[in-house]
């Protein structure tokens, strides 16, 4: 995998490569987490909690609750060490298909 310079630190400007097949949700790489407590308060969906990890360098880590995560991307911007990544939510359901969207937009 080529490492490219991050133009936008934080959330990648494009959705993850699998985003056309599975809904993305966020996950914390626990080894990278520095337990700074910044991500739980930015989540508007109560999807991030801090959990104790006695073996962890910082004794605690952020954990993302899959069932609450709406994949909004905000926690990526809050993490000062880029420890949050995308994973596919294989249980996720797609929204309405494009063809069912018959609404005419009178302005764009």
């Amino acid at each position, binding site marked *: 995998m080529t490492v*490219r310079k991050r*133009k*936008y*630190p*934080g*959330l990648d*400007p*494009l*959705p993850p490569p699998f*985003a056309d097949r599975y*809904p*993305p*949700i966020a996950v914390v790489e626990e080894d990278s987490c520095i337990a700074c407590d*910044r991500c739980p*308060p*930015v989540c*508007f*969906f*109560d999807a991030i909690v801090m959990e104790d990890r006695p073996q962890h360098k910082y004794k605690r880590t952020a954990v993302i609750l899959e069932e609450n995560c*709406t*994949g*909004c*991307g*905000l926690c*990526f*911007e*809050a*993490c*000062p060490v880029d420890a949050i990544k995308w994973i596919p939510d294989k249980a996720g359901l797609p*929204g*309405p298909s494009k063809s*069912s*969207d018959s*609404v005419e*937009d*009178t*302005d*764009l």
Partner: protein
Amino acid sequence: MPLRTTFIGLSLSHPLLVASGPASHDVNQIALAEEQGAGAVVLKTACSDKYEHMRYWPRPRYKLLDWDKQIGGRSRLFTLYSYEQGYSGTLADYWAFIEACKETARIPIIASIFADAAEDWADLAVRAEDSGADAIELDISSPHRPGTLDFEHTFIAAIWAVRKAVKFPVVVKLAAGPDVLQQAMSAQECGADALTLCNRIRGFDVDIESQRPILHGNFAGVGGPWAKYYTFRHVAEAAQHVQIPISATGGVMTGEDVIKYILLGATTVQILSVILVNGWESISKINQEVEAYCKRKQIHSLQDLRGEALKHMTSPDNIIRWSGESKMGPRNRRKTPPGISS
């Protein structure tokens, strides 16, 4: 006490409102806002059934541009670039949501709706009123497709229909252009009780590495601290020409911004991006800053502050100008090329 404000007949503890968006889609958030000292909350916008697809959200939805996360939210130059959509539940869920908010909250709850046909607007507004909302905000200006329809044909009829159908106050949220002043006057004429100025604007950005538009390849809503400057102007302009109260929103990060909006004629001020980047405590922090200002300036009621700066606005004709041509003239005069006699 000096911060107590009356807005569309509602007595608010503070002039600061949580704007419609991700900080008002859940009943637990209303309690957080109230605890921090929000005067009222505008709920997330519910769309009519015709726009059902707006209840499904893309992922991701938010990107902070020019955001230095290393300094933990102290940046004041960022842009919130978003693909925000409508309330994620059905309309029945939304009415239940309003009821739940009314049961738990002491602060007023302002519902927010979007539709296209006038009868749909009126129907949604009636249901919101029946569900117990204290007022309704007509979100006629979302920067997200298809939130912005034609004002002359769609929204005039919508405001008119809603006004006739309900008894509770109707607030109209206008786009940042074009013709904010004209739309503000039209909304007042149609019977709106207040205006929210202004919604975020539709913007766009490109990733030069992949040479693709960022996120999902369509225009997105953009806002941020910089957005206050054009909103200051629209609020100042509208405040001088309409009699209904104005709820200003755009780029508020500090109490100073709130004071500026009030000095320009706003009655209440709505915030959202600042909560998103700096947390719920932003509400109490901003309230404290406004309170400290009032104390320092010995202001006993925000009413005394409202529109104060407008008194000192002038027309371009009255701006004092000075002669500069004797200084500029010689520098701009064409030099005669050497060897050519004139």
